[in-house]
């Protein structure tokens, strides 16, 4: 399970895109819950990359459906340094 602070940080980055005011939780999905299109998700990923100073390759995107998926991926990449 991802670190709480990683998830919090991701909530912050999502908030401006959360036009419908969905309550954010680890299992909230980008496509069906937040209704973000794939381009918006890619832009969000870019912000997450810069926030954590990591590379989150596009190849991972199909597997990152929920907030916790992204947070787990971020933690894993950060840990691997």
């Amino acid at each position: 399970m991802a670190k709480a602070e990683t998830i919090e940080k991701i909530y912050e980055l999502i908030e401006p895109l959360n036009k419908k005011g969905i309550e954010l939780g680890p299992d909230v999905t980008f496509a069906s819950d937040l209704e973000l299109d794939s381009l918006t998700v890619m832009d969000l990923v870019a912000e997450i990359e810069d926030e954590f100073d990591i590379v989150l390759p596009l190849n991972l995107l199909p597997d990152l459906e929920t907030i916790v998926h992204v947070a787990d991926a971020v933690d894993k990449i950060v840990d691997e340094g």
Partner: protein
Amino acid sequence: MDLLDKFDAVANLKASLPFKEADPFTVVMEEIISETEAVINGRRTILAGTNNYMGMTFHDEAVQAAKQALDDFGTGTTGSRSLNGTYASHKKLEETIADFYGMKHCMVFSTGYQANLGMISALGGKDDYIIIDADSHASIYDGCSMSNATIVRFKHNDVDNMERRLRRLPEDAGKLVVIEGIYSMLGDAAPVKELLEVAKKYGCMTLVDEAHSMGFCGENGRGVAEELGVEHLVDFYVGTFSKSVGTVGGFAVSNHPKFDVLRFVSRPYIFTASPPPSVVASATKAIEAIKHGGNRRAHLWENARRLHAGLKKAGFNLCTDKAESPIIAVHLPDAMISTKFWEQLIMEGVYVNMAAPPATPAGMFLMRVSVCAQHSTEQIDEIIKRFRTTAEKVGLELKPE
């Protein structure tokens, strides 16, 4: 389970657009009168969205050469470049393009899409990285998908954003930076010099797609990298015959001594039939003509600047501050007004591209105009006039300066 159900959202979106008289996605060109005019729905229409930048589709020598090739070599090669599909004319075309770019090697592909697919998928191996602009053409994204590399995307035309990403990648890994000279939707030019300099600083190889800049950017029409004097930083150029060259096909050129090995590993090059002899013959003539096409180039830029200035003066919201290419994109507020505008404009006798997400960045709806070297000044003025009439009829508010 119906496999087509997953496209219901797309079908519904398409159905929600209130087209009545015409539909931009089902246009049929009934008759082609010239490079700049066609009959659509029985109406004589100015073509202002065909990417036929240099107006080569009716170039006399190109047409004659194609007819001769049909007589001499038949309608098609019926085979791969790697088997029976390489004729002397394919080799001649590759030499012509290599000469045009002042480079040693060239590979001709059957389409421009396949040129990107073939180059990017072959270059990006399992442990390599491909670094692409966020607004890259679908052929670049698809080339990435087909490769085994790790794909890193940077913010459109943002040099710092790219550098931040390059800094995070392993120093000794294989890295390919892919950019375009001109981006096809908004018609904006890339800061090619800065991007390539940074790419080289981090030890990357570089691929520049000049599909929408070949023919009219740079002294010899090689594209934006030539115009900015940074061709020495380009490892691979990719280009197409379907725009300035006026036919169909694609190519890659390079000085790399091992370049020819790609003919044995690039699947989109191998597993398809080579371009037919008539296409090859017209492409060869058209590229020779473009090389000496200074007058067409000059008139094309005059047209682009005149159209940009005219639409700007009329108060349209343009995507670039000045004409950076022959693509002039007009930004409209939403899908509804965009739909009505396109429909009215075609009724007024002007064809442009209606561009919508996801082909456009940032959810934009555009009337994408591309001008041709063969448009007369009068036609350009007519396009501007009909844009104004259309705005009035559909109630689009203009903000003249």
